[in-house]
């Protein structure tokens, strides 16, 4: 374990009150909450980092940041989190109305390090709600478009109704130099897009594997198969990043709940190079 040094405390152990300033319903079970600080704001979040969100009296959950403020936006330091109602805490957060206050700790964990992809093609592959943590990657790339090569965004969802950010997907797809591929497992009547798994979209995407950086987020099985497809194209594992999830609790590497072999994912993740992640996620006992 990499516990030889005292873990750095990058966020308070005490949740700070943030007010829900908007609540956008994304799908039947998913909302995006925009949060503004009532007191001292937390340090700025980088794409890929997460916050611990507290539904007071119920509990706390780790949720990745899903949006970045536009440069110069007066709403800077506002937070956007897209969350799906799957348990007691997320159901409570999902139901939070604008004006209500929730607790926030963070920022925690590693970022996607988007800037390291400067001068290269950017490949983003997301499955299900995994689109939320990589959305800030695309926003950061588009905010400095000239710094990057071709951009590929491949998205998989269970059904068309489960697709996150459909308006943005259309807008991104209409942006010069940005290829957007969307596929679903279960098409509905009238769906004219792809049907199948998201790794199947990779061979049809135009990018140079030898000079690309890939950002992959979704269920771990989906990430493994996506990684295999990207590696088969010639993308080096060292330029393939995945966002791993375990049982994040403290957020700063103290409690060990999120241990994955030598990594404490709340501190050493969630974003990890696939070269480092692959041997760990293939161990059944971890």
């Amino acid at each position, binding site marked *: 374990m990499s516990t030889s040094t005292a873990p750095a405390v990058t966020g308070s152990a005490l949740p700070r009150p943030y007010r829900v300033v908007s609540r956008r319903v994304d799908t039947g079970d998913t909302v995006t909450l925009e949060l503004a600080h009532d007191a001292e704001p937390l340090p700025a979040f980088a794409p890929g980092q997460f916050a611990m969100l507290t539904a007071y009296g119920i509990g706390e959950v780790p949720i990745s940041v899903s949006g970045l403020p536009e440069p110069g936006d007066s709403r800077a330091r506002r937070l956007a989190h897209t969350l799906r109602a*799957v348990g007691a805490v997320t159901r409570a957060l999902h139901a939070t109305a604008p004006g209500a206050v929730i607790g926030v700790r963070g920022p925690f964990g590693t970022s996607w390090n988007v800037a390291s992809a400067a001068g290269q093609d950017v490949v983003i592959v997301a499955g299900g709600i995994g689109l939320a943590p990589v959305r800030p990657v695309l926003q950061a790339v588009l905010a400095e478009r000239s710094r990057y090569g071709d951009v590929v965004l491949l998205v998989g*969802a269970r059904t068309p109704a489960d697709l996150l950010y459909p308006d943005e997907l259309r807008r991104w797809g209409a942006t010069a130099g940005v290829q957007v591929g969307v596929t679903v497992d279960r098409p509905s009547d009238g*769906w004219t897009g792809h049907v199948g798994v998201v790794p199947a979209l990779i061979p049809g995407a135009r990018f140079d594997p030898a000079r690309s950086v890939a950002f992959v987020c979704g269920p771990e099985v989906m990430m493994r198969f996506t990684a295999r497809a990207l590696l088969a194209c010639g993308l080096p594992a060292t330029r393939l990043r995945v966002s791993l999830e375990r049982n994040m609790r403290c957020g700063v590497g103290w409690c060990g709940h999120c241990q994955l072999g030598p990594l404490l994912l709340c501190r050493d993740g969630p974003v990890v190079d696939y070269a480092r992640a692959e041997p760990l996620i293939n161990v059944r006992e971890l």
Partner: protein
Amino acid sequence: MTDDVLSRVAKLPFFAGLTPGQLRLLCEAGRPASYQAGERVFAEGDLADRFWLIEAGSAALDLRVPGRGDQVIETLAGGSVLGWSWLYPPYRWQFGAAARERLDTIAFDAAAVRNRCDADPAFGYAILRLFMPVITERLQATRLRLLDLYATSAQVGQP
């Protein structure tokens, strides 16, 4: 005709593993075929007498479900091969396929390709080596979708 087919097939990576001689042998059994959006390429139960290399456009594999119409199983885009029921008896399509948009393909005469495979085992082996990964990848994709990875535990009936 063969030279035109040869140049078009060579632009796509799928048959890149064939030797020049094998590629020519294959392309002698091919001809261009295009379909309009919505046009059926083949229907479930019909004789699997061809297979297609998709040059452009996309096709949907489907299955007719009573009361629900043609349910799309999977879509295939440019560079993919469409159809493998021609490889084994009884040479009947297990699913149907229709063009989702204008579909440009090279269609291969299945019996002619099988005859070449029988007459030239090296050619037959090379063809099987190209088709086996396709079959395997689509089987794996199907298994992944069976897992319903994007579903919540409630949606898959777990506590």
